[in-house]
């Protein structure tokens, strides 16, 4: 019994780390959705771009200095952040400006096409040779009793928590944040109240790009080889965001973590004891999504929207 318990505890911890990454991606989605009602299908690929860009910075710095150090990673991180801010701004520019009068569906399809373009461009520029991202924390890990957790995972979890707190604070206690909420509720009224909604949209996209880049940087060492298909992991974050309620920031985190834990436990203990579970491991997230939506069509923490006829 203790065997199973310790196994599950280990899986829960790993699951929280995995879930934190889902949470970060879901955070990005949710922010954009909250402010603009747009579902950003390119979020996963934004993460992928962030990971590649960071790798690029790290390798350029390494080719100059030789040995990797904390300094190298920090500089690369800062450069990646600057890039993501610019990139977010750029994305807002090409999506929101031309399409401001179009129905939401068109914008969503636009994000989809952007995702395809980004994936193709990165693949073309990066070349076919697989790239091995370096972890700034090496392979070290800490052991609590029978539970092993890698330093990277610890860092992932803490970053997610910190970022969520920061963004929650921004959204609820700063002028810009409240302006964002106002814009998402009613863009026209917001405009009438003097809120520069174009700037708000740009800000939201920048935030999302930032979060996506950070999640990409954190995820890369975990998967050993960079590949443009990383973006598909972003798709898994959808159920996470919906689980927590699209449009709710704490919901995104809760959703992400729950999903990560469910997935890891199912891959581990459940698969060991029940053969058939092996068959559905990679789609558990989607089962959860559909089940939740059937019961609460607006997500766990979502708010029902009342639309006028």
């Amino acid at each position, binding site marked *: 019994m203790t*065997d199973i318990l310790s*196994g599950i505890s*280990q*899986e829960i911890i*790993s699951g929280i780390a*995995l879930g934190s990454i889902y949470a970060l991606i879901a955070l990005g989605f949710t922010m954009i959705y909250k402010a603009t009602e747009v579902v950003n299908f390119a979020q996963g690929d934004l993460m992928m771009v962030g990971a590649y860009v960071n790798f690029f910075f790290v390798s350029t710095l390494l080719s100059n200095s030789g040995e990797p150090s904390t300094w190298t990673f920090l500089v690369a991180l800062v450069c990646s952040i600057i890039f993501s801010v610019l990139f977010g701004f750029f994305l807002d520019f090409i999506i929101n400006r031309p399409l401001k009068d179009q129905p939401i569906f068109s914008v969503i399809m636009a994000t989809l096409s952007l995702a395809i373009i980004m994936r*193709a461009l990165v*693949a073309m520029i990066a*070349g*076919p*040779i*697989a790239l*091995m991202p370096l972890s700034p924390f090496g*392979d070290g*890990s800490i052991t609590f009793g029978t539970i*092993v957790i*890698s330093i990277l995972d610890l860092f992932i979890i803490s970053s997610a928590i910190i970022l969520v707190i920061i963004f929650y604070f921004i959204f609820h206690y700063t002028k810009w944040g409240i302006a964002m909420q106002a814009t998402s509720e009613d863009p026209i009224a917001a405009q009438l109240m003097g809120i520069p909604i174009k700037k708000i949209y740009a800000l939201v996209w920048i935030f999302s790009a930032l979060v996506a880049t950070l999640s990409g940087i954190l995820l890369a060492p*975990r*998967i*050993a*080889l960079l*590949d443009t*298909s990383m973006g598909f*992991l972003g798709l898994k974050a959808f159920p996470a965001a919906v689980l927590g309620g699209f449009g709710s920031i704490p919901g995104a985190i809760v959703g992400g973590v729950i999903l990560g834990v469910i997935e*890891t436990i*199912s*891959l*581990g*203990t459940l*698969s*060991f004891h029940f053969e058939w579970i*092996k068959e559905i*491991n*990679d789609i558990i997230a989607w089962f959860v999504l559909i089940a939740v939506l059937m019961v609460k069509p607006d997500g766990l923490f979502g708010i029902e929207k009342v639309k006028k006829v």
Partner: protein
Amino acid sequence: MNKIIGVLIVIGLFGSGCVKRAPSPGITDSEILIGNVQDLSGPMKELGAIIPNGSNMYFKYINDQGGVNGRNIKMLIEDHQYNPQKAVAATKKLIEKDQVFCMFQVIGTSPCEAIRPILAETGTPLIAPATNSGTMSDLTKQAGDLIFHTDTGYDRQAEILVDYIMGKNSDAKIGLVYQDDDYGQNVLLGISRVESKYGITVQKESYQRGAVDFKGQTMNLLKGGLTDVIIAGIVREPVVIMKTAEAMNFKPNFYGTGPTIDARVGKMAGSAGEGFTATYWAYMWNSDEAGPKLYRELCEKYDIPQPYIGLYHYYGFATAMLLVEGLKRAGKNPTRNSLVKGLESFDNWESDTFPPITYSRNDHAGVDKVKLVQMQNGEQVVISDWLE
């Protein structure tokens, strides 16, 4: 009216792709055209870039010397993204539109299986399909008489590994992590043979192609108390599995089949990969036989970029050498038939890249033995002779 415009646009798009060409199965006075379908933008796009590069390097070398019986070899490559349907479309394009002489090095078991009907229908040979699946040399399958396999099948590799493990430790508890597709299926074939041979059960864990997280499977292997684990994966899987196992303090002997022979497995796994043993069916590219030597000379001569040089590139080189030998034996005026006959005349053909290969009317299997290569101190060392 608008329909007419629409139709015109469609015809225009259509016509843009149409090409009028006299029918000649890839042979002109100056050129031999061969077709290759690789994964250029899918999960294995790296192989798709490196392997054909190795072949083209050898073709260039041959062409620089005047070609085969005065004809230069030109290879056309299409992309199938590891999707068998796309592979069929690409092969059709190569055979029917570009009129290639033969197919070569098509990568992936499912794609190769999927194109059997069109190979049979057009009588096009497929030389050296880039897959270790034993099904490739099965003469009872459609177009089997047109396919010439070079690699030792996964099933054989797995069998040989288990023989080796049981030979070292008759109480070994063996586990297998396999990719849940045609690759895995072929491995399972070999495993089931040895299970009945030794009366043991191998604990099996699977993963979907492209998976990145193996905590679950590794945990289960740990629970099984295994002494030896065979990883039937590609490159990422053995690395992540071994690292995960190390973090869990799980230290069985790790083995790998097929593509895990890639040197990067050891490099990326670092200390976790120490002692990892993989099966290999050719001479190591950095060894001293004549074939590898020529390989390295050509790499220098043609300025091959550093990241390309290695196992897969060498594989492209070696299979190209095989094809060229077959073309030479096809005679002054090669036809598809004479190519098949030429290849079937291989009798212990010593290329110094592969061990001696024999083909015949009833045997299209190529190599059926392996050497074991182990990671020692971050370097790959051959630790056995040819095992079968």
